[in-house]
């Protein structure tokens, strides 16, 4: 059976696994986004804390994903989607925190000063002026994380996580069978397509949510 025939035949399964994959990535990204943006807002005006947090996030990203899954498995004592999502959240932090910090620090000091000058308090200034202006940069961070997580999630199958990893690992298990390559290729291709779709979706989101005045 050639690859196209195989893909058509396993279309339902592919779609199901793809949706699972997308779901686990989006949940991880959502939680990571909330934590990462909150962290970025907390540290951007505190240089020491900012460097400490960015360093920790950087170190997390250097941990190989296999090692991370093994570690979380023993730490959390459970398999399935939960430890995978925890791993995704951890991996998503660096791009999001870093871009939040960069975006907020990049807001023109004169704009912040005039926001103060019209009598906006700390939080109003952050919510209605600084964050909206930092938003395109923050969103780039989220977009980078999204693509990163799609790949990392594929390995989550080894601790029972959902998603396209199942096809890839199934291919590995039956490496001598004629369908091994088809399986692995199908899983990989699915991962790539999801990555590209997410990338495009965030690009579109950025267009739609950025004020005309700063585009």
């Amino acid at each position, binding site marked *: 059976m050639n690859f196209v025939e195989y893909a058509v035949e396993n279309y339902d399964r592919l779609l199901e696994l793809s949706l699972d994959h997308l779901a686990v990535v989006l949940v991880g990204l959502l939680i990571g986004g909330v934590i990462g943006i909150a962290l970025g807002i907390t540290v951007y005006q505190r240089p020491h804390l900012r460097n400490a947090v960015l360093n920790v996030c950087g170190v997390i990203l250097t941990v190989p994903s296999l090692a991370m899954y093994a570690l979380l498995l023993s730490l959390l004592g459970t398999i399935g989607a939960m430890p995978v999502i925890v791993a995704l959240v951890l991996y998503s932090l660096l791009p999001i925190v870093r871009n939040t910090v960069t975006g907020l620090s990049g807001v*023109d000091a*004169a*704009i912040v*000063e*005039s*926001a*103060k*000058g*019209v*009598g*906006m*308090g700390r939080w*109003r200034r952050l919510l209605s*002026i600084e964050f*909206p*202006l930092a938003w395109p940069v923050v969103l780039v961070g989220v977009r980078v994380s999204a693509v990163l997580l799609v790949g990392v999630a594929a390995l989550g199958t080894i601790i029972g996580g959902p998603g396209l990893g199942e096809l890839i690992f199934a291919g590995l298990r039956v490496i001598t069978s004629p369908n091994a390559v088809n399986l692995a290729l199908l899983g990989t291709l699915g991962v790539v397509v999801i990555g590209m779709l997410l990338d495009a979706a965030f690009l579109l989101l950025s267009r739609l949510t*950025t*004020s*005309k*005045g*700063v585009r």
Partner: protein
Amino acid sequence: MTDMIALEQLTKNYPGQARPAVDKLDLTIPEGEIVILVGPSGCGKTTTLKMINRIIEPSSGIIRLQGEDVTRADPDELRRRIGYVIQQVGLFPHQTIGRNIAAVPRLLGWSRQRIADRLDELLHLVGMDPATYLGRYPKELSGGQRQRIGVARALAADPPVMLMDEPFGALDPISRERLQNEFLRLQGQIGKTIVFVTHDIDEAIKMGDRIAILREGSTVAQYDTPETVLAAPADDFVKEFIGSGASLKGLGLARVREVSLADWPTSQISAGREAARRALDSSDHGWVLLLDEQRRPVRWVEARALQGEGSLDRVGLEVRAIVEPTATLVGALESMLGSRVGVVVVVDGSGAFLGTIDMRVIMSAVEVMRAAAHKRVLDDRRRVRAGQEPPANAIAAQ
């Protein structure tokens, strides 16, 4: 007339700096006047301004607004009572012009209708069409239009006081002059109490009802009307500061023929050494200028070189710094700086000696130009305030 703002012993210390940026400043701002804080950079004028709305918190001292001590009041509520305009304008780029101007009214919780009416009124006030501009974004406006919107935003909730930090400083000279004139006309209608910071003495003279000239530590060197500051500067610092205008620019426009030349001892080469020595002795200069038969300058000679005997053709220095009456004073100054003697020789079209230009000639020319420039600024200001048309050159420039 009552005082709108009173600063009492206002002080700002920055950690790690030996001297306070603002040192025990006492200053009162009368209601309805434009008071200019002017001084060299680093004198603390901007720090002083920003302490009034507490963008910079004072280290000690008291700020009174309409008699009320606001030194410890809620800074956000204080700022809604004070219009604030800065050089970089600081419009919110992601918001429309309408929303930018409405910033303070929205914070104060005005109704939609009241805000809409006010926006219309404000845009007319700053001479822009509401229908065209309310929905635009800051980046779609020119620098001058942006600062008009900056002024409109500061005026939005009709605050009694406006603080302006070099508001026209980033504009090109033509836009700056237009906005200055417009603003003076506007002030004629609204009569706000305005504190205005600039480093440009010409702008201070033009815009101010009163000028506070500040030296280091925001110490008041003189606080008076522009006319008095110009006519009776309090000390050498003030005198020097009001002379710091665009002298070099003026020197680039003035011609050598417009100044009275300095005399200089000369002697004909053919008259010999004795005549040259006599010319030198009878003056208090160290050099004598030797001329040829056609009175063209040839050599500069010192007393030492005139001792002994012989022809004068080869003694002393060749005369290099020579200009004609059509040269600019900048050109003359440049030649002077390159000359060993420190003097430029002026010759007529045939090369014959007319006189010399030295530092004193340049300085007195600068004095004359300054006086004329200040008179022009004062006249200009009077004309604008009387509601007459701006001077012809401003119209031509548009």
